[in-house]
């Protein structure tokens, strides 16, 4: 009994007052998702290495804010996640992502299936608050099956990690500094059409927004039957994982 209690203490933290068991080496995000606790996130995808760039998963522990996706779980941590203050910060971050790009949902084929949009709904975002950047970013339609609309890219770098870690192709990268950071294609021409990206690659399918899209596949789901028409992002996210079968195929 005593041994059992000690074992649990050594591998237990709390999230919003709920005891959560974790395995050594897991991040706070890993432990939360395994316990079916949703911590908002856009750049994290279970099965891919974390990146820590979107900051939606900010939680508070030991009096400071940390990104749950890149912070190791430790025994005894008391973590606050679903608080009005943190959700207000997350809403601000979401508004920043909206104004930095051109997110015109009424004209986007990803609408209803988009994580950025669903995050706005989840956080009760009614408006973008900040002045719009109105960036002019290059569109790449050179690939026969996939097009790249950089005006919708949130630089989550999921495509970068998916292509490198799972597809083994290293098709994408982020280049440029600060507000000039942008998604590039690792070919001499910089064109997607000159890459070996395949429509079935994870990198061609993991974009959470409308930046990497399949050609001639827009508006296939009726309104009401799109992903986030039916379930909010906090429910959908608990079932997501890179399929084990495709993981490490190309290693």
């Amino acid at each position, binding site marked *: 009994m005593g041994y059992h209690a000690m074992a649990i203490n050594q591998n237990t933290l709390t999230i919003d007052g709920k005891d959560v068991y974790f395995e050594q080496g897991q991040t706070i995000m890993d432990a939360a998702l395994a316990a079916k606790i949703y911590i908002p996130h856009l750049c994290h995808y279970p099965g891919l290495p974390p990146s820590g760039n979107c900051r939606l998963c900010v939680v508070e522990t030991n009096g400071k804010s940390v990104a749950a996706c890149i912070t190791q779980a430790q025994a005894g941590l008391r973590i606050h996640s679903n608080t009005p203050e943190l959700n207000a910060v997350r809403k601000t971050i979401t508004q920043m992502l*909206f104004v930095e790009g*051109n*997110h*015109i*949902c*009424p*004209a*986007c084929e990803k*609408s*209803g299936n988009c994580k950025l*949009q669903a995050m*706005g*709904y989840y956080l*009760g975002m*009614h*408006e*973008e608050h900040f*002045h*719009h950047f*109105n960036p*002019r970013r290059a569109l790449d339609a050179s690939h026969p099956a996939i097009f790249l609309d950089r*005006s919708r890219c949130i630089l989550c770098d999921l495509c970068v990690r998916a292509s490198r870690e799972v597809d083994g192709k290293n098709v994408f990268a982020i280049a440029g500094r600060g507000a000039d950071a942008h998604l590039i294609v690792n070919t001499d021409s910089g064109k997607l059409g000159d890459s070996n990206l395949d429509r079935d690659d994870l990198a061609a399918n993991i974009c959470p927004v409308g930046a990497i899209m399949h050609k001639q596949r827009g508006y296939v789901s009726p309104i009401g039957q799109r992903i986030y028409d039916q379930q*909010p992002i906090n429910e959908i996210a608990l079932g997501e994982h890179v399929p084990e079968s495709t993981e490490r195929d190309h290693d």
Partner: protein
Amino acid sequence: MTDQKIRIATASLAGCFGCHMSFLDIDEKLVQLNERIEFNRSPLTDIKHCGPSDIGLIEGGVCNADNVRVLREFRANCKVLIAVGACAINGGVPAMRNYFDLRECLEEVYLHGTGVTNPQIPDDAELPLLLDKVYPVQEVVRIDYFLPGCPPPADAFLQMLMPLLDGKAPHIANNQLHYD
């Protein structure tokens, strides 16, 4: 006058009138609503300028000088100003012209467009000049509430207006919140 009616003004700036149509989609509830409100300046009335009003509904972004004038007139006369629809809130689909220079747009339509005869860019002083970009209304004046959607659902108009008529803060239900 014991029951002073709430005065509502509405306007379409760089809008498509779709938000006004969605407002009318409350159907027969418009009759009930009409018992408590009266319309000031609106595309639905013949009043030419916005007079003192309790609530102003603005559809559309700000694309030309006349839009700026109308929007400022509404802000000066409305106690509560509500941005209605994607265009008012973030510029909407018309803001896709922000991908281009204004001159490129005008030349494409009036000089080089298919089937153009007597090509010239209209420059009569009667016409309001286009702005360099399409702007959300809150980049021009202060906005009190936002009603998202392209257009917002009819019920969302009631969720916005009914509490305001009673002097309460409105709340848009999660299932009425969408940007498309």
